[in-house]
């Protein structure tokens, strides 16, 4: 498929181009919905479609009023600050616990490894509505329902599987003799961890942290049940906005979130290449 050989028959040529067109259409399906909201968020009208002014590239058809609304409306601002307060704290918990556990799990002497692994990964597999229901019942019993720490705890639990998976993946290529060499040269376990192991698994830890962050930052089902008005996050506000009074401000928020995703994706790609280069897996 890589390239069409010069001796290809007409049928092969036709199929080659048809296949590329099909793939192009599927890529279009994947990316179009995300890109289309960006110009729509600059709509001067409160419409969800392109106005004639926009199609003729008339500057009067575009405006920043939906962004202005986002930055001045107290509901949206409160939601944004709640998200900013909850997600980093959940990320810290998830990354800290997750990294330690991944290191422990990747040692060959860990007893009952597969059972524990399956349990620690399960928050990623169990449907969110079930996690949300269970947490709602249980956290109300212990008085955590509707509190900041309750939401942080739930989000941290949902984020840890990603940290475990990414850190374990970097540990697969980790040469255990480096630890022994460090110990041999007189480093104590703590020094060994921070000076030898940590720099090598750091890309995995950071990408795991990014996953944990985006999990919490995007999460809506659990916070919908667990949170009270004081923990209303950005996705929650978007959810109510979409369900009740759909306002174009949502598109401005969505555009901002897409920008954040693009930044995260770039950081991740950079980390992946760095990690592969460090471990000598590919020339990058």
């Amino acid at each position, binding site marked *: 498929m890589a390239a069409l050989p010069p001796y290809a028959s007409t049928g092969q040529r036709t199929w080659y181009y048809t296949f590329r067109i099909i793939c192009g259409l599927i890529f279009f399906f994947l990316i179009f919905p995300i890109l289309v909201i960006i110009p729509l968020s600059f709509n001067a009208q409160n419409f969800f479609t392109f106005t004639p002014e926009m199609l003729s590239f008339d500057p009067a058809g575009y405006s920043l009023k939906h962004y202005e609304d986002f930055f001045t409306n107290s509901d949206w601002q409160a939601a944004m600050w709640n998200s900013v307060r909850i997600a980093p704290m959940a990320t810290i918990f998830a990354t800290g616990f997750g990294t330690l556990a991944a290191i422990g799990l990747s040692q060959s002497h860990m007893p009952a490894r597969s059972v524990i692994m399956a349990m620690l990964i399960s928050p990623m597999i169990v449907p969110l509505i079930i996690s949300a229901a*269970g947490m709602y019942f249980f956290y109300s019993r212990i008085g955590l329902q509707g509190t900041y720490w309750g939401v942080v705890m739930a989000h941290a639990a949902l984020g840890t599987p990603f940290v475990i*998976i990414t850190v374990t993946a970097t540990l697969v290529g980790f040469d255990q003799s480096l630890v022994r060499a460090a110990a041999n040269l007189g480093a104590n376990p703590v020094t060994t961890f921070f000076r030898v192991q940590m720099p090598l698994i750091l890309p995995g830890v950071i990408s795991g942290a990014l996953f944990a962050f985006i999990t919490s930052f995007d999460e809506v089902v659990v916070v919908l049940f667990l949170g009270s008005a004081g923990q209303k996050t950005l996705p929650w506000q978007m959810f109510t906005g*979409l369900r009740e009074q759909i306002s174009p401000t949502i598109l401005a928020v969505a555009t901002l*979130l*897409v920008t954040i995703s693009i930044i995260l994706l770039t950081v991740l790609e950079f980390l992946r290449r760095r990690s592969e280069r460090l471990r000598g897996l590919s020339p990058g």
Partner: protein
Amino acid sequence: MTDQTHAQTVLTTQDGVPLKVSISRALRRQKLRSVLLVAPLFLFILISFVLPIADMLFRSVENPLVPGTLPNTVVALQVWDENSGEMPPEEVFAALAADLKVAVAAKTHTRVGSRLNYENPGIASLFRKTGRRVKRFEEGDYTAQFLKADKKWGDVGVWQTIKQFSSPMTAGYFLAAADAQRTADGVQFKPEDERIYLFLFGRTLILSVTITITCILLGYPIAFLLSSLPLRSSNLLMILVLLPFWTSLLVRTSAWKVLLQQQGVINDTLVWLGIVGDDSRLALINNQTGTIIAMTHILLPFMILPLFSVMKTISPTYMRAAKSMGASDWYAFWRVYFPQTIPGIGAGSILVFILSIGYYITPELVGGTSGIFISNRIAYHISFSLNWGLAAALGVMLLVVVMVLYWLYDRIVGIDNVKLG
């Protein structure tokens, strides 16, 4: 014995400890260290996640309300045979009067009433009405006083319901979740047109299968293209797959909500192209079509990524060998290439199916009434109808399905082999 002959030549470390002992001690220490590293997360997940799920399992069978609020009645009812068709004896009415007086003072009688109302409609108002009068009940002949307060107390069915729910554990929620009910002739399914939950489970499964199939159909060509292109261009195209994967779920759902509306971009384009008349715009949202389109878009990366990682490992020489031996393009693909990609299809399908079966947000926003899933019903019972036991029972049933699939996924792919990005 071999052990004794070995005993003379036992290897020791420098400080005279036998080597075996020293090694096992070191191993034990390493084991302890790995356990200590895992322990914090283990405890954290146990408290924040596993116990809540266990609590839900417990709630789906627990039944504290009736035995807790009407303790004397429950004891008195033990001597009454609910299948006799006769009214309970006077002692039961006396016990209920005593229980209700306490319950009315604590204002808990309405809760029992609304709990029993799920099983036998009308009991809620019966309890409320009797609750207002019970304070004025006089000593003696409670049966007549109850019947005077409301003649529904003469209905044996009411007493049967109370007795049914007088044990601290109940299978009632599970029966309700499976659209069954206890009747005089044992457990029976509800009439065909009242089976909402089985119907919803069926719809969830059918829609999830449909979404999985569309994901295979759309994901396979993309994964095939990406795996056959040179690394540089495939990395570039991979961004088009990863960007949706990284974009917030709500952003993608709102994008579809905007695109699929009657006055939305897609319908506008179709009208402009003259494919659809202005008065016959397509209904793409608030129905099953909307759910399928939006969820396929959201879950497609989860199909492409595992497929891609499998296809990347298939050597192109197999295809060349098949063709050099005279196979046509299609034959070589179908008999040589395709069978090798089946593990990827399996992994992707299970992943997509697991994720889609428990989806809540997207069906809620674009599914209308015909495109909602069982999750939406669970959410409804938690926040609106407040029938937590039923919500828990439905959740447990969904959880069992997901756990079986998870186990299958672990067997086929191995949970350690999950790759992200």
